[in-house]
């Protein structure tokens, strides 16, 4: 087949015309941001229960046209782009927990939920979670969706074979300190050849940091990543490495999943939502897992918020929808549909959350995650935490994966932090 120029020209013109028409058509079909009755809700795949969102659309269909939109790819950069571009800003926007530190200093881009009467809902939500959605000046930016209490996932049979405690209560109790946890890891390595307690040292380091109330930069914009709470987490991570408790695999890779499937990585410290990752990633391990409390005290990992942007024309209506989507009954549904662990303690007693889970050998996992969620401490997240936490996490990873000398790694991390702190105007 030879393309004639004329044919090509004709085909191209037809294509362009079709596109222009298509563009016009879609231009009409796409309402841009809030136009009176339209209410655009942005979230990401798995960020809310699809059932609940569908119900909300039907429930409020009489007064507004709720348009839930799932945003793929990099959610935050897309949201920031539309807010800065002041066009196509959604009325209601989901905010990921790890991004809150970036949104809170710009609370003026959002509607203060206190002005819409948020205060009267406060008692129904976990206090630490509620506080995470509030900026320094008291502006309430985010309304709590879920939280990510961290627990100890382990494979029952492997622990039993290794001569370790294997019933959830016994594991919670027997492995309740880091020392006991590490000793169990050594025993596991001896009794089950090739088995490691954890995938990498970051599992120890980040969980220990997240158990506490401090991160890397404090409210006064001062670097605290060189203080005791980080040093302790560092020392424990180094110890896990030295005692041979971590694998040389990378989390999320095919190799790690196959090791989990083979019982070579029978244990992980992970948030409640990880149960859905395990179910999807290694479905063959069904029935082998149990959940227990993690050593010392629970940490939190993840969990998000809903916000109302300044672009919203009907904030009262939006707030009504938000509070309905996130009430205790619907949060329980969110747990069933998307593994979103409720920030409403009233949900923990509801039927949907009391179901024995066959994947966990019939265990009611809420019995572990529920109490854990209530014991989490409020931590201050600085907008500079990412920039100043990354060098430390990178270096502990170098220790774990590349075998770098821990002393050298620590001093490298600190000198890098000093430089970055100076650049960002964070006192060191």
């Amino acid at each position: 087949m030879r393309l004639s120029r004329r044919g090509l020209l004709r085909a191209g013109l037809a294509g362009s015309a079709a596109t222009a028409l298509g563009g016009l058509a879609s231009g009409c079909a796409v309402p841009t941001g809030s136009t009176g009755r339209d209410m655009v809700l942005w979230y990401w795949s798995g960020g809310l229960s699809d059932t609940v969102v569908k119900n909300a659309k039907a429930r409020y269909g009489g007064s507004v046209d709720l348009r839930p939109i799932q945003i793929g790819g990099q959610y935050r950069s897309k949201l920031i782009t539309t807010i800065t571009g002041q066009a196509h800003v959604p009325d209601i926007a989901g905010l990921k927990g790890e991004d809150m530190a970036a949104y809170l200093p710009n609370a003026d881009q959002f509607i203060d939920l206190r002005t819409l009467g948020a205060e009267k809902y406060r008692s129904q939500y976990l206090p630490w979670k509620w506080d995470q959605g509030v900026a320094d000046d008291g502006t309430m930016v985010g309304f709590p969706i879920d939280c990510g209490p961290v627990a100890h996932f382990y494979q029952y049979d492997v622990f039993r074979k290794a001569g370790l405690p294997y019933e959830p209560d016994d594991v919670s109790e027997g492995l309740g300190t880091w020392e006991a946890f590490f000793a169990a890891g050594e025993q596991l390595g001896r009794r089950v050849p090739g088995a490691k307690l954890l995938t990498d040292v970051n599992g120890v380091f980040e969980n220990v940091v997240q158990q506490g109330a401090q991160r890397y930069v404090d409210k006064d914009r001062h670097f605290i990543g060189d203080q005791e709470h980080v040093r302790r987490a560092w020392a424990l991570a180094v110890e896990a490495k030295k005692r041979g408790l971590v694998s040389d695999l990378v989390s999320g890779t095919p190799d790690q999943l196959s090791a989990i499937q083979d019982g070579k990585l029978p244990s992980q410290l992970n948030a409640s939502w990880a149960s859905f990752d395990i179910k999807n990633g290694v479905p063959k391990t069904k029935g082998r897992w149990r959940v227990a409390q993690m050593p010392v005290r629970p940490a939190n990992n993840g969990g998000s918020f809903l916000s109302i942007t300044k672009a919203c024309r009907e904030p009262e209506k939006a707030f009504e929808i938000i509070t309905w989507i996130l009430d205790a009954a619907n949060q329980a549904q969110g747990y069933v549909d998307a593994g979103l662990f409720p920030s409403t303690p009233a949900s923990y007693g509801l039927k949907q959350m009391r179901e024995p889970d066959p994947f966990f050998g019939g265990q009611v996992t809420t019995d572990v995650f529920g109490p854990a969620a209530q014991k989490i401490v409020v931590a201050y997240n600085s907008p500079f935490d990412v920039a100043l936490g990354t060098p430390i996490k990178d270096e502990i990873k170098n220790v774990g994966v590349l075998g770098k000398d821990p002393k050298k790694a620590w001093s490298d991390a600190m000198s890098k932090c000093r430089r970055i702190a100076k650049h960002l105007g964070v006192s060191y």
Partner: protein
Amino acid sequence: MASIKGSRRRGLALHVPLVVGTLISAFPFYWAVIMSTHSSSEIFSYPPKLLPGTHFLENVRNLFHAIDFFGSMWNSLLVAVSVTFLVLLFDSLAAFVFAKFEFPGKGVLFGLLMVIFMVPAQLSVIPQFVVMAKIGWIGSMTALIVPAAANAFGIFWMRQYMKTAIHDELLDASRLDGANFLRQYWHVALPVVRPGLAFLGIFTFMGQWNDFAWPLISLTNPDNVTLQVALSQLNGTHGTTDYGIVMTGALLALVPLLIVFAIGAKQIIGDLSKGAVRG
């Protein structure tokens, strides 16, 4: 006898490495087929699966359930076809001028073009979004088509190609016949650079088809996105991905490319010999 043997040995010496190269080229495609015909957990088992499995239809079903595959494919086609057409036209026109004519400011303008070529494309998404929002193109395919309608790579390529493919005697002759610039372009230049255009067309189409970063930001309505943006929604929330479904989507997304390629490749393979690249 001896010479036949010799040429056979020579043939073998050529074909053996060529076949090995073909196998290496083809293997990842074969592997993609293997991944798309297994469930996620089968993919990760050891020893690695070497033969296609039975999960393909299930993966296809899940894929079609998860995203509007054909709707987004239509959008991708619209964008890729329009951009390819515009690029072929604008780039070849500009290249024809840069390759065969002299005019004041030529060196500076071509230098500028090469410098623009080197500006990182990711430089600034936000200001581009602001511009598009001001003219009201956000959310429509126009925001993808117009900025891509001419590019430095294509002009550079066509210029190098045209320098030798179009013989000056032909241009001189046509000018003596009274042909103006557009007639020269249409009747003298285009017929001989067909293979170069086919090459550019294939790569423009492919680039648009696989483009991701800008469509992701500028297409705000999920019911109206391109295929690559739709496929990106398959990635799990917490970093877990069902590789079986993702590979199935990637393989099916390849089909239109293969068709375009089959059409264009004939041009290239048949005729690229007519012209060549000149510095």
